[in-house]
């Protein structure tokens, strides 16, 4: 597949192919619906690419630790899973963050909590952005809404992971994994960044070790602040978001991923009816685009947060706007997915109600 050529790919394949082209040499993971197509694609594809390792791990717990091992050697590595499996990986992600090891982790979110179901959801926002594992750490969290964006974000995720020495989590859902869209694939990365910090054997020099156990409280404090300063740098430089029809909007829907695709369809319908509605779409869930949202709030008085959950990102919206704006929420947990038509009715009703309120 040449670059610049459009190919029709399924979401899971698009993410897998983008990863391989970014220089991902190892995949470790455990089957779980609705993301099995991704490891299956990697198994097929990696057999064609020399020097790559595909290994189905015996659990997600083992998988994330294999990722840790591969990352320590300086190799670009990824894993993927769905919500309950990502729960199992939390310990490993905390260790990756603590040791400042790069890795890309894909979460194709399903209904939860517990065993839940296999339908699409967005109920792992807290898990992804609020740590999930123990300790003071962050991961970059990316939420593509379109397959081309998934390709571009996945490709770039490996660079971000290496540059900042941080785990990068890409969140999607079963719909995105299954849908097919034409995408342009990036070229295979030839040059990968050097990693002096990698542990590969002392090789005639002094031996080194990598660890996260820092018994001296002052040393651990210093390490935590060092991580914190890194996260602040990422906050300043890596925010990504998208806006649609917000230039004169009186009400803005805030949504990400598949919910944003649906919201965009709702906005189109509402605009056709003359309602001044727009869409603000975070692409990085962490760092959350709070400044951009605040800028928007300078001219927009009403926000409508729409998620496939009982309300997780809405807390970040409220935090960003600090109670300065009217914020409504509509969510459907458990894997229920509504259509743009249904959403447009719900938002339309709210829009009219707010107009009424404004007149009285």
């Amino acid at each position, binding site marked *: 597949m040449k670059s610049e050529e459009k190919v029709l790919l399924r979401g899971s394949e698009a993410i897998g192919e983008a990863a391989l082209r970014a220089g991902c*040499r*190892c995949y*470790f993971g455990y089957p779980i619906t609705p993301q099995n197509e991704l490891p299956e694609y990697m198994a097929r594809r990696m057999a064609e690419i020399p020097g790559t*390792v595909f*290994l189905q*791990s*015996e*659990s997600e*717990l*083992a*998988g994330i*630790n*294999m*990722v*840790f*091992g*591969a*990352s*320590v*050697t300086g*190799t670009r*590595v990824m894993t993927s899973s769905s919500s309950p499996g990502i729960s199992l990986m939390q*310990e*490993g992600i905390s*260790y990756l963050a603590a*040791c400042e090891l790069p890795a890309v982790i894909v979460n194709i979110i399903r209904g939860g909590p517990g065993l839940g179901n296999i339908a699409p959801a967005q109920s792992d926002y807290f898990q992804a952005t609020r740590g999930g594992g123990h300790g003071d750490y962050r991961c970059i969290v990316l939420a593509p809404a379109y397959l081309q964006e998934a390709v571009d974000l996945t490709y770039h995720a490996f660079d971000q992971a290496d540059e900042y020495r941080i785990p990068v989590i890409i969140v999607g859902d079963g719909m995105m994994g299954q849908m097919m869209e034409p995408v342009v694939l990036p070229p295979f990365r030839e040059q990968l960044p050097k990693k002096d910090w990698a*542990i*590969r*054997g*002392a*090789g*005639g020099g002094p*031996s*080194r*070790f*990598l*660890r*996260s*156990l820092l018994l001296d409280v002052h040393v651990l404090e210093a390490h935590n602040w060092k991580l914190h300063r890194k996260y602040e740098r990422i906050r300043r430089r890596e925010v990504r978001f998208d806006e649609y029809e917000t230039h004169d909007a009186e009400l803005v829907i805030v949504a990400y991923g598949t919910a944003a695709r649906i919201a965009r369809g709702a906005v189109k319908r509402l605009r056709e009816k003359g309602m001044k509605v727009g869409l603000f779409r975070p692409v990085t869930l962490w760092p959350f685009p709070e400044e951009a949202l605040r800028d928007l709030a300078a001219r927009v008085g009403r926000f409508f947060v729409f998620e496939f959950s009982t309300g997780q990102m809405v807390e970040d919206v409220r935090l960003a706007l600090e109670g300065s704006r009217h914020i409504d929420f509509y969510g459907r947990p458990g894997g229920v997915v509504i259509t743009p038509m249904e959403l447009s009715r719900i938002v339309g009703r709210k829009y009219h109600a707010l107009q009424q309120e404004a007149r009285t």
Partner: protein
Amino acid sequence: MKQVIGRPRLLKEVPFHYCPGCGHSVIHRLVAEVIDELGVRDRAIGIPPCGCAVLAYYYLDVDMVEAAHGRGTAVATGMKRCLPDRIIFTYQGDGDLAAIGTAELIHCANRGEQITTIFVNNGVYGMTGGQMAPTTLLGQKTTTTPAGRQAGNDGPPIKLVEFLSFLERTAYLARGSVHNAREIQRTKKYIREAFQTQMENKGFSMVEILSPCPSNWKLSPVESCRWIEQVMKQNFPLGVVKDWRGQPS
């Protein structure tokens, strides 16, 4: 006179933090000697446990990577798959390997990962203050079995090397001990053979080593060694359980 025994080159000049009479110190020394004698220091990478030996990287002069509790064999798998010519070994205790890390161990061994595991069996959880381990003997008193381990409640102790011998791609499995000079020398040989198994890509290798824990056994170092001789090794027989060189080709 010439010096015939001295401090191994690959033990850093750092005093051990281990308790008086602890087997870890002896085992670290054996690992250091074997790695040096085999000439693989520059391509060896060790993975210490969560446990008393978590600070092994302060003592062994090889590259080391700390893993989460029990996950050493999974981390070793990831590393070895990326760097197949390195000598990757885990150094794990009875909690790390026989409790929380057993699933990872079994699958790593089943796949025949070309890594070596040094399994330190002292029948208790040392670092956390002497709780029951999967290898604690029936009737043995620990802080979580104050009346002695009961088979009905806790099951009997696990014999890991025998357990693993059923897996086809385990190539070298042995159980040694460090409770007297003869067994220490024998165990050093097992450790060497285990590393050689890896160097020749013959499959997974493991050496379980009975080790004294005087602090948690509440015995003196000399009494602890006597206890291994008289009691522990009756339950955990010493010797080579599986050796690929004895297999038909």
